[in-house]
């Protein structure tokens, strides 16, 4: 008798989960549809490509943030970290260009990856070894990174060497079979992220730690290491985003990446990852990043709201999207 019940429930359960998982994609589709209705220019190939390419930064960083959030953490320093990594990378490339020429670009990129990972490591170690709330630690390091980039740029801007610009430009503006490079890189990072999260031991442990860290500890999971590693992954992703970022404008300023952390966390959450940890949706995050960028784009294209109120409408749309999400997934 009880077998009947157990057999019946999971099917329903299964349906439920699938709806919930699809919610961000459905929401994205709805917003795209609305965009098309509101403005005929929205669907132009050019506009769509622009929007998708632009969303790469938030999506790439979001993949890392998904790891951090899945372990139950939070990283507020990502925007400033991006600026810092961009600054270091530009300094490195400019310093290397006399000796290495165009080879300064890959070497500089490598430097960025190392620096980004180290920044993440620092965040992770302070949090796990010092046992301090991630919110506070990353708020602190946010100030630190921001100050460093301001210092490095002298409050102004720090540009990449003129001779590297042309060689480097295609990393943002170029494409392969019509797919812009940043989009390709996003796909690679998201695939990698999904593989690590869903198919490796480490990924299992990430969700276990976020779900119940005591249980994970009793099961022999090195909770601190898993958490720290998530921050390292976050740092690495920030560095990848930095590598795509520099060829776009070729400079770092004290405002680079400002408030990106909020956008990234929003993308992660509207993508279906829970802030309390234990559940993670890499592809949802990517959809979330796209959603944010599309909303902003539609706002600009549609001439309906006063420029003062754009932020209000964006805020409202995000809340409404989450409400819709709640409805679809609780039904």
């Amino acid at each position, binding site marked *: *008798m*009880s*077998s*009947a*019940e*157990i*057999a*019946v*429930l*999971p099917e329903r*359960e299964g349906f439920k989960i699938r709806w919930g998982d699809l919610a961000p994609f459905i929401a994205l589709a709805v917003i795209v549809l609305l965009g098309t209705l509101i403005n005929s220019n929205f669907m132009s190939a050019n506009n769509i490509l622009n929007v998708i390419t632009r969303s790469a930064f938030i999506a790439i960083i979001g993949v890392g943030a998904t790891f951090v959030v899945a372990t139950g953490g939070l990283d507020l320093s990502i925007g400033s970290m991006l600026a810092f990594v961009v600054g270091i990378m530009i300094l490195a490339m400019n310093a290397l260009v006399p000796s290495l020429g165009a080879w300064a670009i890959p070497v500089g990129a490598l430097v960025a990856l190392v620096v980004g990972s180290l920044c993440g490591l620092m965040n992770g170690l302070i949090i796990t070894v010092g046992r301090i709330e991630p919110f506070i630690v990353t708020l602190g390091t946010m100030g630190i990174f921001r100050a460093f980039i301001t210092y490095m740029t002298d409050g102004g801007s720090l540009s990449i060497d003129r001779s590297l610009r042309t060689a480097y430009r295609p990393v943002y503006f170029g494409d392969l079979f019509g797919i812009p490079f940043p989009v390709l890189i996003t796909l690679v990072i998201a695939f990698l992220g999904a*593989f690590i999260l869903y*198919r*490796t*031991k480490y*990924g*299992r*442990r990430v*969700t*276990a730690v*976020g*779900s*119940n860290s*005591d*249980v*994970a*500890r*009793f*099961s*022999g*999971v090195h909770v601190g290491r898993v958490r720290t590693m998530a921050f390292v992954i976050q740092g690495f992703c920030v560095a990848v985003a930095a590598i795509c970022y520099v060829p776009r404008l070729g400079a770092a300023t004290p405002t680079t990446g400002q408030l990106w952390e909020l956008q990234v966390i929003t993308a992660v959450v509207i993508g279906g990852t829970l802030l309390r940890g*234990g*559940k993670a949706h890499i592809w949802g995050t990517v959809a979330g990043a796209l959603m944010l960028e599309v909303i902003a784009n539609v706002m600009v294209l549609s001439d309906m709201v006063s420029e003062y109120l754009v932020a209000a409408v964006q805020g409202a749309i995000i809340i409404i999207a989450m409400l819709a999400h709640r409805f679809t997934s609780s039904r």
Partner: protein
Amino acid sequence: MTFAPTDAAGGAQEPPVLRTEDLSKAYGPITVLSDVTLEIRAGEVHAIIGENGAGKSTLMKLLSGHATPTGGTMSMFGKPVAFADAVQAEDAGIVLVHQEILLAPDLTVAQNLFLGRELSRGFAVDDRTMNRRTAEVLARVGSLARPTFRVGDMPLAQQQLVQIARALLDDRKVVILDEPTAMLTNDEVDALLGIVRSLRAQGVAVLYISHRLEEVEALADRVTVLRDGKMIGTWSAQALDQRQMAELMVGRELSMLYPPKREATTSEPVLRVEDLSVEHGRISGSFSVRPGEVLGIGGMIGAGRTEMIEGLMGLRPAQARAISLNGKSVAKPDVNAMMAAGLVYLTEDRKGKGLLLNEGLGPNLTLQALDLVNPGLRLDRKREGRSIQSAVREYDIRVRTLSIQAGQLSGGNQQKLLLAKVMLAEPSVVIIDEPTRGIDIGNKSQIYRFIDDLARAGKACVVISSELPELVGLSDRVLVMRSGRFVAELTGEDITEQNIVYAAASSGDDTEGRKHA
């Protein structure tokens, strides 16, 4: 009190698998376990019994590395050992199945079982193999769950089976089961007893804690008794019967377990529920209770008893055609309306839904009856203090200090605190889900007397229980639920264990084979 230990340490030829010498544990100023000297041999089932708070779980945590002793030593096969954490103990072959559920709710069954020791092929985890092996152990423990179920979505009993399955995944030298059967019904218990026996046959030492003395009697080779954190002694199981065990535990003669039945009442029902429908009608039914009546609700795990009552209380989505309580009709299931009208519910999930584990006794005790204990807006600290005192006295909550947190109480004492909490609201109808889960035998009779007193005082009690003797011993009337429907109503002489089991499990052929021997 006249039995001398018949099997104190020693007497075995080969060195014991595990031996403790003067093992002690203190939490801050409070010593909860002192000077335990114990020997566990290969191929034996060694039962540990004792009252609530006697220190059984604490001892098991020490043996399995979940806590570190503050005094004494341990040795395995004659060699001294000390475990810094549970992982070291598991590496040494000792595994503990906790009294409380300790699983990651967001992971699947298989992921939980293999957490920390995932199998992999190359970089990727080998889900296929892990799921297959999980399915095997699940079948062994008689669980109907699938490896890919999310643990948090499963009933508590199924989660308990998953915990047991986890312990059996690898070969072990010592398997410790801390009240494994508290949440299980007969079928699962039978399956579990079978597993324990086969472990014993394989030479594994099994430490078994249970308040169900009939299980101890049926299973154990030796029995160790703890009382107030001290070891009373170890006996050969043949030397003791259930009554003697109980008396060793409590240190005094025990009175009758069940109070005598009351006269049947004929007054109008105080609670009448018509066509309650929970979970989109998967669970539905009507019932009523009269003042002075104890209504038992029986059924197998997953039958939907808990969900039905949670629905009635408005704690999960539900509709009802009509509910009347104390003569007033309640518009729709809503926890506050119910409580205001005098109906309280004691949850079966004391850790997740019953107690604030990080809070002290006061906040827990008064949470539900805040308005009653504190008539004004302000907290009445004095009155709260008095409530704590009287609850501790009345419900015999064994605490060594009143400033303890609920999470630090022993399992049984948590249950008593929970009981005290819902009773503080002075209800006229009480629904108790698994009233004696994890309660020792001495206190059981006390809780039974308590329920009886309530009924005699003209209150109505609904008791959901998976312990058949309890239903039989307490109830004036028993409803049996199966697959979300009431399938039988038993009264008077018809209330027998056989009838309840028959009603709960009949229909369907598959259950025939699984009926207990």
